[in-house]
């Protein structure tokens, strides 16, 4: 994969640029925001965008741009932790299922079926009924879903690699199963997993936004994009612009990650691109 090929791939470039911008915004928010994001100034409520408040203020007079910056932190961290847990548990499960086959494989398949019977929103509602609302419970719901996603994707990809001659040769020459998985199988499925992680990250951000919108995710006063939309809906008739910015933030971030994932898939596996006919 040469640098020039990467630079000639528009969706990869645009996706990487958007993702990097959101990451930088979230990182900068650790050290600087135009205003303290939780600062309530009733006297300055519902200010339209201006040189002082770049994106205006909300019903508590809080600076929207500062809240969007800190909201990026929350969205990205919920997504990253949920996908991280999903990978950390799902990938080993998928690898072992592919290697062992038999009843181990059956158990993993049943587990995935069970998880997919509960869409993430539904399992989040179930977990909330048990533990109450909160960011950690939202992460838990999205993570459980991702464990099943990664177990299934890893299993499928690993089965293909395990059937190839060099892996069978390694096993025949006496390399142990664990070492075969780590040395031969994992590096060959890593590309698929990286692409899946990007797509899952985007889906996790959408799920977190939906849960926070319902009041089941990140709790106030900690700002989150979904929560900002729920608040905006209450003032939509008089202050419609409040409903635009947080939604755009979610959509642009997800768009960036999806473009990045598509781009990486094309760059890592050019045959895929031919098959899809793009």
């Amino acid at each position, binding site marked *: 994969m040469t640098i020039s090929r990467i630079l000639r791939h528009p969706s990869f470039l645009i996706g990487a640029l958007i993702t990097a911008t959101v990451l930088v915004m979230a990182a900068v928010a650790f050290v600087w925001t135009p205003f303290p994001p939780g600062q309530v100034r009733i006297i300055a409520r519902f200010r339209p965008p201006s040189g002082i408040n770049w994106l205006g203020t909300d019903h508590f007079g809080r600076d929207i741009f500062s809240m969007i910056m800190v909201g990026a932190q929350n969205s990205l961290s919920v997504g990253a932790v949920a996908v991280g847990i999903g990978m950390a548990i799902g990938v080993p499960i998928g690898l072992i299922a592919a290697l062992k086959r038999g009843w181990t494989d059956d158990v993993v398949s049943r587990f995935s079926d*069970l998880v997919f019977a509960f869409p993430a929103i539904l399992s989040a509602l179930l977990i909330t009924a048990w533990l109450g609302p909160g960011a950690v419970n939202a992460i838990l719901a999205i993570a459980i879903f991702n464990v099943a996603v990664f177990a299934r994707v890893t299993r499928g990809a690993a089965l293909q690699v395990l059937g190839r001659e060099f892996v069978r040769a390694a096993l025949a020459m006496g390399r142990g199963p664990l070492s075969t998985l780590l040395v031969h199988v994992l590096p060959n499925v890593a590309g698929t997993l990286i692409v899946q992680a990007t797509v899952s990250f985007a889906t996790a951000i959408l799920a977190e936004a939906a849960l926070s919108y319902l009041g089941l995710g990140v709790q106030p006063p900690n700002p989150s994009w979904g929560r900002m939309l729920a608040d905006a809906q209450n003032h939509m008739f008089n202050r419609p612009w409040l409903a635009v910015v947080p939604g755009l933030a979610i959509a642009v971030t997800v768009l960036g990650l999806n473009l990045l994932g598509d781009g990486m898939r094309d760059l890592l596996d050019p045959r895929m691109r031919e098959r899809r006919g793009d």
Partner: protein
Amino acid sequence: MIGFLARRLVSVLVTLALASVVVFTVLEVLPGDPAQMALGTEAQEDTLAALRREMGLDRPVLERYLGWIGGLLVLDFGRSLTYGVPVVSLVADRIQVTAPLAGLAMLMSVVIAVPLGIFAARNHQRVGDYGVMGFAQVGIAIPSFWFGIILILLFAVWLGWFQAGGFTPWREDPVAALKSLFLPSLALALTEAAILARVTRAAVLDTLREDWVRTARAKGVSENGILYGHVLRNALIPVLTIGGLIFAFLLAGALVIENVFYLPGIGRLVYQGVTQRDVVVVKNVVLLVSAMVVTVNFLVDVLYALVDPRPKARA
């Protein structure tokens, strides 16, 4: 064929049984005392004792679980703690909103996506194709609940063509009922239409590359004849599969969209059940929704096996 379907049916039943165990465990075993969960920590001891008796919590766990499952089989879902009416009548009421909502959204996404997908495939690697693919990327990225809010802004607040939320019951005014479902369905349909348009385009392109299409061209069949007489019928098989899976996503999406538009559907019922700590409603409705997801996936498999005999050999 029969063997494949029998195996799939067994796995569906196993999944449903496991799902019921999970729901029961999370709501009735793990919290320790579901009556306390329902009433909160401030509740009086005698109120708690009365509710425990009513919920049958004085009986052993296994007996309670079997009692619940036995009730489900004869459509006795128990009585809601907040509404005081049988859950089955609540569900029967609310499904009249959620089922048409999901159905209408499904219809809209097919009507939008299939022509777009065919158009993109016919204009492969030209402006029209890139336009449709751009629409699909954006459609997948936009959260449906935000799109719902934007639709309310445009069509209810500014243009005044629709109401901003709420639902007119079917028996009062069927036209108004349909109208109150229009914007929510459109909000739900966008993401699914975007996915479906991509699938349709890819499927048509794949089929156009088959040898028999070249043969048909060589025999002088017109491009339209090839596309509508031969290709579309074959290309719609993957579209059908994804379409079925999308129905499950639509059900999940309805949980959120109903809250955006204040629609009294299944999603709002379970959401309110959670916020009002109505364990009986949550337990039954969550299992019901997951049963619908599993059943739709099973029906898609059956349909797929009927339409396309090829996968059966693999299964």
